[in-house]
């Protein structure tokens, strides 16, 4: 691709960024105007300017809370990725393991995590609150990784597997050279879903953990709500949304980097 082609591509893609930003500016302006026009009380709905002010005023403490939530999210995401891939590998190595464990994976997935979070908090103990939060968020994020990795590992070309066996490949070689690369696009798709779910899991876990123990953004939302500091609540909410978008963007970038040369899903962007 030449430089001018690249410029053309970025020109064509500029609306993807520009148009949503224009819409955001219009909506925020209308919101600001409406608040002032109808004199809406700040404890019902604060103006965007008030939210920005709250964000600046509480910036240090909000960042600390963000760090806390983000740490739980990332740990849970890493744990669910490792556990999900490991379980998927076990599934593809043995039908017996798959048949035995799969129903439990489904039960774990369909049980509302809010319902089991209190149990986990009690069992792990409030003195290890961080571990409890990570476990809850891991359970939420685990399933899409498992489902994606299992489907991917099973999608390997049968003829390619036959060829490998013909040349005396071991199970480990087949896994490493054929099954895992085949599974990569499926796994990355699962990871994109799991990234958002890990954040949701972390927030839910903080809500359940309640006062005094958790220090993340979810707790700031509860606290601000109780004190009718709605502007701070909105600031925390905006930070959560921003974090979710950043996680998604980072994983999309990872996906594009790993797949752009060979996988159909990413080729549209490269050529």
């Amino acid at each position, binding site marked *: 691709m030449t430089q001018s082609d690249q410029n053309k591509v970025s020109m064509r893609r500029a609306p993807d960024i520009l148009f949503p930003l224009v819409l955001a500016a219009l909506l925020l302006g209308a919101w600001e105007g409406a608040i002032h026009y109808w004199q809406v009380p700040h404890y019902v709905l604060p103006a965007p300017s008030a939210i920005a002010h709250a964000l600046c005023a509480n910036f240090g403490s909000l960042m600390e809370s963000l760090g806390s939530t983000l740490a739980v999210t990332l740990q849970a995401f890493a744990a669910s990725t490792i556990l999900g891939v490991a379980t998927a590998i076990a599934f593809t190595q043995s039908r017996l393991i798959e048949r035995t464990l799969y129903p439990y994976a489904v039960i774990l997935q369909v049980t509302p995590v809010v319902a089991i979070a209190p149990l986990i908090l009690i069992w792990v103990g409030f003195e290890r609150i961080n571990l409890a939060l990570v476990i809850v968020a891991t359970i939420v994020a685990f399933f899409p990784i498992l489902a994606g990795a299992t489907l991917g590992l099973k999608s390997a070309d049968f003829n390619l597997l036959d060829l490998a066996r013909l040349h005396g490949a071991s199970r480990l070689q087949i896994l490493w050279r054929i099954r895992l690369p085949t599974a990569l696009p499926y796994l990355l798709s699962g990871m994109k879903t799991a990234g958002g779910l890990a954040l949701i899991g972390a927030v839910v876990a903080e809500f359940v953990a309640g006062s005094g123990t958790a220090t993340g953004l979810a707790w700031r939302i509860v606290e601000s709500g109780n004190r009718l500091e709605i502007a701070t609540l909105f600031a925390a909410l905006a930070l959560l949304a921003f974090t979710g978008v950043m996680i998604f963007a980072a994983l999309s970038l990872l996906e594009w980097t790993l797949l752009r040369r060979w996988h159909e899903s990413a*080729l549209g962007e490269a050529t």
Partner: protein
Amino acid sequence: MTLLSLSAVAKRFSNGTQALRDLSFTVAPGEFVSLLGPSGCGKSTALRLAANLLAPDSGAITFPTGKPEIGFVFQEPTLMPWADALANARLPLDLQNAPRGQANDRAASALARVGLAGFERALPRELSGGMRMRVSLARALVARPKLLLLDEPFAALDEITRAQLGDDLLRLWREDGLTILFVTHSVSESAFLSQRVLVMTPRPGTITADIALDTDLARTRDGRLSPATIEAQRAISAALNGAGALV
């Protein structure tokens, strides 16, 4: 001398289909043998049995002079889409844990032998259908096989590409002293390429005719249209007709 021998081989699939019944034939070292028959007559199954990718229900598959190194080419190129041509051609050596440098050299020379010098870094999606099949052929040759098994390798290609690859296959067969078992449903392909054509009946597959062709047939540029080739096609067609395969 016999390199490969199938005697009274039968194979039934789990869905109940009797794919092969009483299949017996031998292949001598250095021979180019075609296994010809209509779709679904069990040719591919026979090839997979020979490669030990399937086990027969009864009968025996033996290699009287010892099990040779086997190369296998599928109907589809069956390449790893994430790996470049060199890494794809190198796969059999990688699986044998050959030293990387040596494996790279051998894979590069295998690619050069199928006319793909300079395409080592190309990914499968960047190559044409014919070139992908060439990578597949290089991969089959890289481990220096004695026996090359090909399962309708050119069926999905256009006629011009198919003819070029056929010529290349003959050249490689001569240069390496390969033994080739070539599954095809093309009468003209089998007549031009092989020294012997084994004609199979439809399901359950078994051999109805074993036609030896003029081995000194000059396979020049117009060899495909030479009187001997045309005559061979006529004989093969007649055998297929006798087998009830042609309407």
